[in-house]
Each structure stands twice: as C-alpha cells, then as structure tokens.
C-alpha cells in the first residue's frame, strides 16, 4: 500500500513530466502575438517597397525596432514552447527525446539572440552600411 496521495502519484506523469506552467505561458505568449504579429505583417506589406533602404529606414525607427524586438521575443518563446510540446508528445525514447529537446533549446536561443542582436544593430549600428 502506498501512502502517497492520488495527486502525488499523478504529478509529473504527463508527457512533459511537469505541470501547467507551459500551458499558461503558451496562452499568454499567444495573446501577446496577436497584435504584434498583425502589426509586423501589416507594416511590411504597407511599405512602398521592401528594398534595403526602405526596410532599414523602417526598422531603424525606435518604435518599430522596439516592437520588432518584442515580436521576436514573444515569437521565439511561443514557437519554442510549441515545438517542445510536439517533441514531448511524439518522440519516444529518453535519449532521442532529451537530445532533441536540448538541440531545440540551443537553436531557439541562437535564433532569438541573433534576431534581437540584428534589430539592435540596425537601431544603433553604423547607418552608412
């Protein structure tokens, strides 16, 4: 006979191995992405052209750079949570699962970090380029 409570026995047995934190984070980042993604999509389409000059001038504006940085942060986080969830649900075998999860974490930090750095470079970098 186990003395553990029914709750104690089921905790940690979902495919993620932990609780509802990811669920909430996914919803909150999704809500943040609705206005941010629509703004970005509309802004790029509304530019008269998407050549280097137009795109650079647009992103170099403080408001656009700030919102683009928020978008990249929310997008990277949301995409990370979603991809992790797919791996947790569908990839079996501890080594394969752990390996993929680690790889994805590194990839997302790399992509998010590089994107944010690029936005900052456009905002504060050498305008002559």
């Amino acid at each position: 006979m186990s003395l553990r409570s029914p709750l104690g026995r089921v905790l940690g047995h979902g495919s993620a191995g932990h609780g509802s934190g990811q669920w909430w984070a996914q919803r909150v980042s999704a809500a943040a992405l609705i206005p941010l993604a629509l703004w970005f999509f509309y802004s790029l389409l509304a530019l008269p052209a998407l050549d280097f000059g137009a795109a650079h001038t647009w992103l170099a504006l403080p408001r656009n750079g700030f919102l683009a940085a928020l978008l990249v942060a929310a997008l990277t986080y949301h995409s990370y949570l979603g991809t992790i969830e797919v791996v947790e649900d569908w990839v079996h075998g501890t080594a394969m699962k752990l390996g993929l999860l680690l790889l994805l974490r590194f990839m997302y930090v790399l992509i998010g970090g590089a994107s944010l750095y690029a936005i900052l470079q456009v905002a504060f970098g050498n305008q002559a380029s």
Partner: protein
Amino acid sequence: MPARNRPLSPHLQIYRWQIGNSLSILHRLTGIALALGLAALSFWLISLAGGEERYRAAARVFASPVGVLLLIGWTFAFFYHLLNGVRHLCWDLGVGYERTQRHLSGWFAVLAALGLTLWVWLALWHFGRI
C-alpha cells in the same frame, strides 16, 4: 481496484476522421511550418543588419520561385494558426464549445485563412511587388 484493468482513454486511431481533429492536426503542422518561418525571419533580420550586399542576396533567395512558394505557404500558415489560435483561446475561456459553433468557427478559420492568403498575394501581384 487493480490499476491495469481500468479503461484507457481512446487512442488516436480510434477516432473517425472529421473536421475537429483535422483542424487540430493542421494547427500543429502550421505551427511547425511557422517555426521554420521564424528561422527565415531571423535570416531576413540578420541580412538587413549585414548591409546592402547581404540584404540583396537574401532578397534574391526570397524572390526565387521556391522562396515565393514558401512565403505563400507561410502566409497561409500564419493566418490559419492565428485564427485557429483565437478559437483555442476562446475555448480556454469556455466559449464556443457547442457542436455547431465548433464547426462554424473551424470552417471560418480555414476559409478565412485561404481567402486572406489569396487576397494578400493577389494584392502584391496587382501592385507589381512580385
């Protein structure tokens, strides 16, 4: 009660193929597609920060036939994932669970995403952007 004899929840292959599970699967597929789109967005931003030469090279990749095809696909994935995501957020709030509501909002998400994709790319084509 022996734990082993308990009824298990039905697994995937037991469900009849219908709009509900199709759209749920499509939500995940478009999510994965958009994860690749995030990599493309990152590539675009890095090229933009890298100067005019780099940006031109990146723009050529995006303007290639394969590039345009991918961009059209990402446009659909974006709109569908956005609209279906709103459906999911509504369900999380306990709204729209009735059978007819689910079916209506599901069809709306698919058809609106297709319509918006068509509209965006026809507009781009009309204004000579592609």
